[in-house]
């Protein structure tokens, strides 16, 4: 397929399909994340990037036969490797014997949170999750370093505002419907954030949903309106505060004589301490994910508006 726009759309459908596959595989939290990330945000970023790089792919001068041969050989080796793997759905597979039974049997007494995924994510493996949050933060900083918007002259800004206003007048119904929906999306994000202990949800999903509400707002009302609503440097500080909050919870438990990220140190009752720790950790994750996503989107979209790219020939 040579049209990259169609490729991006197909990728979005693929994301949605894999989300429904994850529901069928009992992975509700994962499905939640994949639905908001794979079908929503990644498509959006892909579209913004394509609008800057052009949507037509040049005909390939590579020889596909060699690539096909490499792929087939690798694939058959991998299939040969699966022959002594445990069968699908078998409860005797080694993966289910090692550490999972402890999480399933003891997490209620130790953490007191019904959603095992949340208790493993935020408490048993908090150190891992901390690493992931730092990676997300670093990626956000990387995008910032690569794409941060150059200052423009006032004339250009006026031109852009004029263009945006003209565009927005045309989409009256879209604009009003979205305006009604945005508060509900934000509310839902908060629900997902704080209900993650009991049902599917948590900081990662909530952050992405929160960011997508801001994306929708930006798409309909233009970058300049969105910049007036959301201060860019404030968002950058917020991303750092999220990581710091996460790290501080670990340091506090360290100072209280327990291990790093051992939340039972946070309150007199160990289970209450765990609840408190998970609340703060998820808040830190949510803050970082939401603000990094907004940073990424703003920088992509802001790049798109600079005069250098306004003379696009493909679109």
């Amino acid at each position, binding site marked *: 397929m040579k049209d990259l726009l169609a490729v991006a759309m197909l990728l979005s459908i693929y994301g949605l399909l894999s989300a429904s596959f994850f529901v069928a595989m009992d992975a509700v939290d994962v499905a939640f994340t994949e639905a908001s*990330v794979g079908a929503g945000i990644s498509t959006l970023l892909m579209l913004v990037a394509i609008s800057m790089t052009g949507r037509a792919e040049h005909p390939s001068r590579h020889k596909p036969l060699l690539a*096909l041969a490499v792929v087939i050989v690798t694939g058959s080796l991998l299939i040969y490797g699966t022959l002594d793997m445990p069968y*699908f759905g078998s409860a005797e*597979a080694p993966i289910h014997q090692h550490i*999972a039974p402890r999480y399933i049997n003891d997490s209620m007494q130790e953490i007191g949170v*019904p959603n095992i995924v949340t208790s493993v994510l935020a408490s048993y493996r908090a150190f891992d999750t901390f690493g992931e949050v730092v990676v997300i933060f670093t990626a956000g900083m990387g995008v910032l370093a690569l794409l941060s918007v150059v200052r423009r002259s006032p004339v250009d800004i006026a031109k852009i505002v004029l263009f945006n206003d003209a565009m927005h007048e045309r989409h009256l119904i879209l604009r009003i419907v979205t305006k009604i929906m945005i508060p509900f999306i934000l509310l839902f994000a908060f629900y997902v954030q704080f209900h993650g202990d009991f049902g*599917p949800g948590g900081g990662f999903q909530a952050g*992405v949903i929160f960011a997508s509400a801001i994306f929708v707002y930006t798409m309909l009302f233009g970058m300049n309106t969105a910049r007036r609503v959301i201060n860019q440097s404030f968002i950058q500080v917020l991303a750092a505060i999220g990581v710091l909050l996460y790290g501080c919870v670990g340091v506090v438990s360290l100072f209280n004589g327990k291990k790093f990220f051992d939340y039972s140190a946070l309150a007199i009752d160990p289970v209450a301490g765990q609840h408190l720790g998970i609340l703060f950790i998820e808040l830190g994750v949510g803050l970082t994910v939401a603000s990094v996503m907004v940073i990424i989107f703003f920088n992509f979209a802001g790049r798109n508006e600079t005069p250098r790219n306004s003379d696009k020939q493909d679109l």
Partner: protein
Amino acid sequence: MFIGLYNYWVVIVLMMVGFYIVIAHGNLIKKIVGLSIFQTSVFIFYISMAKVDGGSAPILADEINQYSNPLPQVLILTAIVVGIATTALALALAVRIKEAYGSIEEDEIQKQDNLD
């Protein structure tokens, strides 16, 4: 008798589709799409291994006594969000390459590099 292994084969097919796109296409955006298909195939691999027959989603409730494995789900949950962050970084690089070279086709970039 090997039919119980079909989940791995689906994963391998998806993985090879992604791999093929990465090595056979010159367009950088296409390569990123291929990488994300490859990535999703690994997600599906982990999640399908976590599934237990007759198991339920790992949210504790009184009347359920068989749960799917929560650990791979935790790993993949965070990997998805990290994946989108790194994909965004890759797209940002592609945009910068477009600005510097005026193209995101691999062979054209190489040609310009060879001229210098």
